[in-house]
């Protein structure tokens, strides 16, 4: 399967599709049992299945709770399993139905938001009903998000489950804002491609067998790793109608969808030939009333075109369609716990030529922006392995996002406004009173790999001072499962080979899951060497500590994270406290360089004791 795109194509017979009741029932009282609604829902599912089979693709049929009460839906699933090899699975989406509401006395429908007791009741209810209808328990399940406690319970009670849809990539505050602040899927910070979730936190890949939750997780859709970082995730994914939602089409043409699929195929170049796609279009996106301004004909055609493209790739020997459980077996046979997932991703829609490099392993997830000189614009400390229960009865009722240390769009990034700083890891260079942040240098990168290290080689950056011009080469190294990121920046050319330029490699951070600042009173900033340690207890006083050589350190007890920076040879390292109007912290390393010299820094994330 190496060098082929692996496809998970998933359908669900959702008897009351999201959106459809609201659209079909405008001006009427809510009624989940309207005959036209039920009939249309099943018809859409049948159509999706027909299109897939016509193109020689097998599917994973995720039965919903409501569909288990529908004999025709159950019979269809059995027939398609027998004829086409489709997997019959069970989703925890699609709970809304009269039966569910009568039993649970609530309109809640997102499994991760229920209390833990209710999660268990619902899971037992749905799995029992599935067994009653099919005579076996499913191997695959899923929802938009599945918290670790939920996965652990399912795996313990129903060990047949080996695969689950477990998150929607970067569906957090952006999705909330895009829906006029009404869509409570706060689940930023997870992997964009399949992973084995840890028992402690779904977003965090398991580091070893003892942390292994026992399932392979897949994301809900394969999303654009550039467009979704800033824009609404539900506009830019392997979901034809999402592409229409984002208005990335003209005159019935949407090459963006195929570019997106092809870029996922291209990721095999960076991941030992492994490339993956997931398509999962809920029936509500293909209802006869149209979806927003798109008429039904376009909704249907876009689905046909998307599936036809996958079918063409399969015929050409470039794609393998697997069911979810088949994929889980493949994944476990071909990945180790610590194998990083990487993506050197280019903008394919806006014409900017911007490149992002995404990296994740069980210790961290990060994004390098090559349009900002190789600055880190997103950083998540997976190494903290945070236990963050979610749902009613917990402090995080709806917020399933994994916290960031850097999120350049939520917390300013390279700073262009009135006063303060933004979260970013970058390098400033200064000479004779001028200071340039390399975040203002446009560049691109190439990728290479050796052993357990991944390298990002940046095209050289030129910095022009009034009386000096230098060219800087940069290599960023990610050593798997260490929590370390190494930056090496070298002056390879200078208009004055003897001129000394000061390099300040810094990280300005915060913590949180949204745009709004958290209280930072618990943070400790330190500089240490073999003989002494100095500390600032964060109190928004803008203080600073510096030490010769040594290590700079930030401890954030709220998210059990320790960040350190160090270098080699002679250097200064420092920490700086923020202030109320700029609730950040900064740690950095400073060194003077002339032509031919290099500054190496190690940024390391650890779990704080």
């Amino acid at each position: 399967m190496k060098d082929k795109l692996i496809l998970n194509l998933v359908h669900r017979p959702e008897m009351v599709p999201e959106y459809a009741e609201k659209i079909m029932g405008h001006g009427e009282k809510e009624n989940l049992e309207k005959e036209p609604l039920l009939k249309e829902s099943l018809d859409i599912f049948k159509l999706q299945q027909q299109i897939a089979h016509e193109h020689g693709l097998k599917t994973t049929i995720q039965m919903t709770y409501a569909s288990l009460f529908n004999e025709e839906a159950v019979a269809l699933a059995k027939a398609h399993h027998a004829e086409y090899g489709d997997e019959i699975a069970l989703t925890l989406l699609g709970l809304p139905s009269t039966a569910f509401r009568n039993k649970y006395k609530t309109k809640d429908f997102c499994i991760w938001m229920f209390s833990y007791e209710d999660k268990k009741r619902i899971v037992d209810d749905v799995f029992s009903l599935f067994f009653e209808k099919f005579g076996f328990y499913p191997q695959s399940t899923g929802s938009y998000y599945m918290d670790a406690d939920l996965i652990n319970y399912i795996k313990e009670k129903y060990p047949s489950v080996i695969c689950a849809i477990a998150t929607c990539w970067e569906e957090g505050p952006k999705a909330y804002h895009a829906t006029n602040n009404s869509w409570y899927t706060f689940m930023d910070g997870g992997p964009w491609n399949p992973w084995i979730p840890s028992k402690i936190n779904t977003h965090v890949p398991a580091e070893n067998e003892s942390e292994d939750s026992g399932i392979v997780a897949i994301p809900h859709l394969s999303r654009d790793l550039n467009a979704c970082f800033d824009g609404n995730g539900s506009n830019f994914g392997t979901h034809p109608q999402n592409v229409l939602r984002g208005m990335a089409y003209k005159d019935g043409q949407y090459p963006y969808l195929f570019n997106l699929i092809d870029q996922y195929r291209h990721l095999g170049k960076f991941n030992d030939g492994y490339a993956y796609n997931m398509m999962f279009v809920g029936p509500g996106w293909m209802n006869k009333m149209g979806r927003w301004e798109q008429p039904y004909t376009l909704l249907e055609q876009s689905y046909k075109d998307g599936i036809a493209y996958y079918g063409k790739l399969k015929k050409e020997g470039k794609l393998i369609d697997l069911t979810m459980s088949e994929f889980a077996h493949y994944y476990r046979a071909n990945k180790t716990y610590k194998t990083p997932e990487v993506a050197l991703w280019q903008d394919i829609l806006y014409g900017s030529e911007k490149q992002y490099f995404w990296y994740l392993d069980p210790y961290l997830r990060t994004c390098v922006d090559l349009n900002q000189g190789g600055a880190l614009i997103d950083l998540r400390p997976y190494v903290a392995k945070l236990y963050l229960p979610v749902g009613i009865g917990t402090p995080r009722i709806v917020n399933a996002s994994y916290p960031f240390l850097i999120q350049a769009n939520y917390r300013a990034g390279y700073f262009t406004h009135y006063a303060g700083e933004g979260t970013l890891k970058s390098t400033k260079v200064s000479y004779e009173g001028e200071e340039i942040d390399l975040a203002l240098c446009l560049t691109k990168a190439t990728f290479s790999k050796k052993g357990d290290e991944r390298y990002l080689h940046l095209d050289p950056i030129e910095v022009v001072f009034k009386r000096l011009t230098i060219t800087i080469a940069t290599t960023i190294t990610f050593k798997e499962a260490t929590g370390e990121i190494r930056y090496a920046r070298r002056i390879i050319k200078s208009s004055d080979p003897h001129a000394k330029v000061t390099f300040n490699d810094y990280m300005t951070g915060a913590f949180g899951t949204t745009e709004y600042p958290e209280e930072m009173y618990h943070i400790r900033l330190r500089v240490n060497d073999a003989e002494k340690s100095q500390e600032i207890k964060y109190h928004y006083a803008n203080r600073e500590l510096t030490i010769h050589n040594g290590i700079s350190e930030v401890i954030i007890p709220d998210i059990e994270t320790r960040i350190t920076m160090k270098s080699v040879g002679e250097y200064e390292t420092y920490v700086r406290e923020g202030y109320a109007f700029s609730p950040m912290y900064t740690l950095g390393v400073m060194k003077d360089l002339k032509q031919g010299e290099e500054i190496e820094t190690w940024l390391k994330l650890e779990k704080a004791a």
Partner: protein
Amino acid sequence: MAQARKGRLNYRCPSCFMRDIDMDMFYDESKKEFYCLRCNYVGTEEDVIAKNEMAKFRYRNLLKRITFGDDDGH
């Protein structure tokens, strides 16, 4: 004046869309135009369609089919 209803298609507000908000619009039968509940946009169906096209200004590669090579990044 009778209550507003959805139009022929469920148009979103083009002004809100341009700031990444999906906001359904309603139809004012008396003025024959759509209006947004959140912002101050009003417009005929023709205007909505024209503004939706305008919203695509940022997609410079909207109709470009991209080929990904065998390279390691560039």
